[in-house]
């Protein structure tokens, strides 16, 4: 039976702990009666991802989709009758048979199903649903994101108010807020939002996508070429040179295994080196709250820097903090911590990786199998 524990901000009920108190110590999340997962396949791999005030939990390529938190903008796809907050993991019906991925923005959500179809729900105030103008500016039921006919998508990502989807041919589509050029389109003050999924052109075929607050990060199918567009105020566009005026590009030192983005920084998990001894997470961007796991002069660092933590096997980023799981099953956190979301109950910001779960916890069933983040919170899956 899966155990999901949570830390951090909870004013929207997004921790699924049954109340709306912040959790400064790992708190056990609750499943609704309908969402009872006792009968689930024990081999199912669980994923958790959250946005501003909502979160989803699902079985990877499995039939189960659960959500919690606010549905005020329809971000839980639970219909207009449910405003929330929903305080425990509750089933959400969805089109298709299996969930491939869920991504959450400030108040919208994208769903990718087993057929490679992308659906959106929640606020469309900035065009982030990709369906053109909506009568109420929001929807509380899944709507299909239109793209070129027959597109099969393989991954989705949400920024604060923008959305990306990657198709099986390596083409990225973007829609939503573009005031900072985060969709890779030159911003137009008269049309700051892009209402329909628009392909990004002129880049190598893409393998990975991630969104920050007002920027987008892509990694090409060589797993080393990185493209970033959008806001660069905190050096979130990284160390590269600009290409065609919209995308900055730079190279990673080793092949990428996973790409994540916080609000104003980027993080890449690299493949281990031959001896499996070196640190394998690189980061860049905003640093003033410990986001880069280093103290830096000023509030950001443009150059890539390693996080002092070897053998990381997974990473997840919130708005201003990062969670890492090691090959041995321990969990470390760093960054902004005002709500306890980076694991220090004193609520001081964490400037170097803090171990929040040991490799060998007292109970074997508490060993970490996965991690996830919402904007101001962290989840550990056991």
């Amino acid at each position, binding site marked *: 039976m899966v155990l999901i524990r949570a830390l951090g*901000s909870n*004013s929207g009920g997004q921790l699924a702990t049954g109340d709306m108190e912040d959790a400064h110590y790992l708190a056990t999340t609750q499943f609704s009666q309908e969402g009872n997962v006792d009968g689930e396949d024990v081999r199912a791999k669980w994923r958790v991802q959250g946005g501003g005030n909502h979160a989803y939990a699902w079985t990877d390529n499995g039939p189960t989709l659960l959500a919690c938190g606010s549905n005020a903008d329809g971000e839980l796809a639970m219909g207009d009758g449910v405003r929330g907050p929903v305080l425990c993991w509750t089933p959400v019906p969805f089109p298709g048979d299996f969930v491939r991925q869920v991504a959450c923005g400030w108040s919208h959500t994208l769903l990718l199903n087993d057929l490679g179809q992308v659906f959106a729900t929640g606020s469309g*105030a900035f065009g982030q649903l990709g369906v053109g103008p909506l009568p109420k500016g929001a929807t509380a039921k899944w709507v299909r994101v239109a793209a070129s006919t027959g597109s099969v998508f393989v991954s989705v990502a949400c920024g604060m108010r923008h959305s990306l989807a990657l198709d099986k041919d390596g083409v990225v589509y973007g829609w939503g807020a573009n*005031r900072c050029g985060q969709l890779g389109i030159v911003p137009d003050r008269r049309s*700051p939002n892009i209402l329909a999924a628009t392909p990004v052109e002129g880049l190598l075929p893409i393998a990975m996508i991630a969104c920050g607050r007002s920027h987008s990060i892509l990694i090409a199918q060589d797993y080393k070429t990185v493209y970033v567009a959008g806001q660069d105020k905190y050096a979130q566009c990284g160390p590269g040179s600009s290409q065609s005026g919209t995308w900055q590009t730079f190279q990673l030192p080793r092949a990428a295994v996973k790409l994540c983005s916080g609000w104003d920084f980027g993080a890449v998990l690299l493949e281990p080196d031959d001896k499996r001894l070196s640190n394998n997470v690189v980061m860049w961007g905003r640093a003033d709250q410990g986001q880069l796991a280093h103290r830096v002069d000023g509030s950001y660092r443009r150059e890539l820097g390693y996080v002092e933590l070897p053998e990381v096997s997974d990473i997840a980023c*919130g*708005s201003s903090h990062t969670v890492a799981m090691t090959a041995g099953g321990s969990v470390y956190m760093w960054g902004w911590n005002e*709500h306890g979301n980076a694991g220090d109950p004193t609520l001081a910001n964490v400037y170097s990786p803090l171990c929040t779960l040991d490799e060998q916890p007292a109970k074997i069933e508490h060993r970490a199998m996965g991690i996830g983040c919402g904007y*101001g919170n962290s989840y550990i899956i056991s």
Partner: protein
Amino acid sequence: MASFYDEIEIEDMEFDEDELTYYYPCPCGDRFQITLAALKDSEDIAMCPSCSLLIKVIYDPDDLP
């Protein structure tokens, strides 16, 4: 002088016409907020009810509704 989490242009804030208040997302999940009245009074600091973070609002006083 308190340091700001960020400086946000008013065009990036969402305006609630019932509450006459401007909102911007806070990293914690709550929202920075400042009333129209406060902006007209030359105040420009929006606060989050759940955090110590502050933002400075960039706006033209002549452009307020």
